[in-house]
């Protein structure tokens, strides 16, 4: 058997540091020993092919999961899942979760005194089509306070979870909104030290996917780790 075609190693500076003291919870939850570099084996170049059977027809439309419509600004979030070589990733599971328009999660541990919305859960899932495209209908999440430091506010964001074709390509990120003044103060966003790299988490307003008289469109392409261009033979 030839050597498994490996994935590229991480591009330096593209990812947050696990130990980012501005985000206080990382201090006791990040390793101090150096990571051990693991050359990819069959265990890493394979990964879960999961979820297709569990997708319901309303899972990608967060505005239609209840009796009535949720309050807030209706938006369409769409984009492509690509690898670093620009190749679309079809058939991959995309999961998302978010706060409601008032900045409150339905989660029991969220004690922010903002109203829950009986018509909004804030969780969705879909599978990318043959061109790697996904599309969600939802409402724009609100900002909310947290206890990281005095007067700390999370910028509005949507959590994304993506599998891609292998264990290596797994990605969980947060999508932010363009022009948000809170980004400059957010230690989670700024845990990605290189501003150019951090900006890859900001969606773009997109008139082309905006539906007239109905909802604003935001585009957010998600890039997963790509294959090495030159697979090595054993």
């Amino acid at each position, binding site marked *: 058997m030839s050597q498994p075609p490996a994935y590229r190693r991480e*591009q330096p500076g593209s990812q947050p540091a696990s130990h980012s003291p501005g985000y206080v*919870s990382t*201090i006791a939850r990040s390793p101090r020993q150096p990571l051990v570099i693991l050359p990819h084996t069959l265990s890493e170049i394979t990964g879960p092919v999961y979820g297709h059977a569990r997708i319901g027809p309303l899972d990608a439309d967060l505005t239609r999961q209840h009796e009535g419509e949720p309050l807030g600004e209706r938006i369409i979030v769409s984009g492509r899942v690509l690898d*670093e070589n620009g190749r679309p990733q079809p058939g991959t599971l995309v999961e998302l979760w978010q706060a409601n328009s008032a900045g409150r999660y339905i989660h029991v541990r969220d004690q922010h005194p903002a109203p829950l919305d009986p018509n909004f859960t804030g969780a969705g899932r879909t599978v990318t089509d043959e061109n790697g495209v996904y599309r969600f209908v939802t409402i724009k999440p609100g900002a909310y306070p947290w206890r990281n430091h005095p007067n700390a506010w999370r910028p509005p964001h949507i959590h994304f979870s993506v599998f891609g074709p292998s264990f290596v390509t797994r990605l969980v990120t947060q999508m932010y909104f363009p022009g948000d003044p809170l980004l400059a103060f957010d230690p989670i966003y700024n845990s990605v030290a290189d501003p150019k790299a951090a900006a890859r988490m900001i969606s773009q307003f997109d008139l082309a996917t905006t539906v007239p008289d109905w909802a604003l469109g935001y585009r957010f392409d998600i890039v997963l780790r790509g294959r090495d261009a030159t697979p090595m033979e054993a």
Partner: protein
Amino acid sequence: MAETPLVETPWQTVGPFFHYALPFEGGERLATGATPGTHIIVEGRLLDADGAAVPDGLIEIWQANAAGRYSHPEDSQDKPLDPDFDGFGRTPTDEEGWFRFYTVKPGAVPGRDNAPQAPHICISVMGRGILRRLVTRLYFADEAANAYDPVLGLVPEERRATLIAAPGGDGTTYRLDIRLQGDNETVFFDI
């Protein structure tokens, strides 16, 4: 390394509020009664620098079936596939930091250059305060093949024990605690 046209999107923490979105029913149960192989429980606690429980962690595992084959198109080994075993598990940690999976012991899969690897389970650790996934592996203490495993061989000898799960008295429960920092910090891999 050549420049790539695109660069991987940055990781961000799953935060504390993923519980209503990511865990799914049966996520901790990879094997059913009919799954071929040795049925085992893999469990442990997720602990922080002070040895305190991490009650808002999320653990995912990825493993081969009992025959040593991954349920994935790129595993072309001539070994049986089990249509009911996809090899993926996901569970949140509980209030005391416990996670627990019901699965079968994976068979051995080949490593690079066809060097044999000891049976192992791939683990992703996520949670509030964990900005990017931490990757580790679980090996089984009762496997002689551990001595020759090429990945364990990359790990400084004095730290290998952090990857090796000990069987409990019943012989079917393997425990591996994951220590994010501090004494006996778990070995995490850069993949």
